[in-house]
C-alpha cells in the first residue's frame, strides 16, 4: 500500500541545537516533495520544495534532503529557536500530475530555551 510517514509525532530539543525530522514514503514516485509548517489554529505554510533530481536544498536555517533510493526526505533546522516550535508536515505529489498532495501526519517540534 502507499504510505507517507513521519516517524516522530513529537521532537523536543534545546535551543541552539539542530532539529532533524524524517519523512519516509512507500510505493510512490513523486516528482517533488514539500515541507510545510503549521502553527496551532492555522493552516499549513509552505517552506521548501525539493525536486527528485535535487539532493539538497537550503533556505536560511532550513535544509532539506531528498533520497529517492531510500524514499526519504530529511528536514533540518539549524541553530533552532523557541519560535521554531510548530508542527512540520511533509507532502508529496503522488502521481506527478500536479493533483492534490498527500500529507504526512506531521512532527510536532518543541524547542526549549
Amino acid at each position, binding site marked *: 500500500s502507499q504510505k507517507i510517514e513521519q516517524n516522530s509525532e513529537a521532537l523536543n530539543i534545546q535551543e541552539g541545537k539542530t532539529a532533524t525530522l524524517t519523512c519516509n514514503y512507500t510505493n510512490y514516485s513523486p516528482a*517533488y516533495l*514539500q515541507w510545510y509548517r503549521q502553527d496551532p*489554529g*492555522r*493552516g*499549513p*505554510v*509552505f517552506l521548501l*520544495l525539493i525536486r527528485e533530481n535535487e539532493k539538497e536544498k537550503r533556505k536560511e536555517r532550513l535544509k532539506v534532503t531528498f533520497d529517492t533510493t531510500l524514499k526519504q526526505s530529511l528536514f533540518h533546522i539549524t541553530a533552532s529557536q523557541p519560535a521554531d516550535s510548530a508542527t512540520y*508536515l511533509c*507532502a508529496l*505529489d503522488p502521481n506527478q500530475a*500536479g*493533483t*492534490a*498532495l*498527500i*500529507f*504526512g*501526519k*506531521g512532527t510536532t517540534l518543541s524547542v526549549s530555551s
Partner: protein
Amino acid sequence: GAGVSQSPSNKVTEKGKDVELRCDPISGHTALYWYRQSLGQGLEFLIYFQGNSAPDKSGLPSDRFSAERTGGSVSTLTIQRTQQEDSAVYLCASSFKGTQYFGPGTRLTVL
C-alpha cells in the same frame, strides 16, 4: 487580498443539519483544494478543482459531501445531514506552480 480566506472561522451545528463552508482563493490561482484535518491526524484530501476541468472528487468520504467552484474563483463545500464524525477543521488551499497556499480553516463542530 493577500491570501486564501475562509468563512466562517468556526461553525457549531446540530447533527442532521446542512452546513456550507466558503473559500476565497488567491486571485489568479487556477487550482483549488479542500482538505479535512481531524485532531491529531494529517490532512485528508477531499476534492480538487483545476481550471474548467471536472473536479477530482475522489477524496469525498460520502455523498453527503459536495463542492462547487463558481466562476473559477470562490468555492463552497457543502455537508448535508451532518454527523458527529464530520467534526474537524476544513482547510482550503489554492495553488501556484505546485505550491499550495492554505487558508486559516473552518473549525466545524457537530453536536
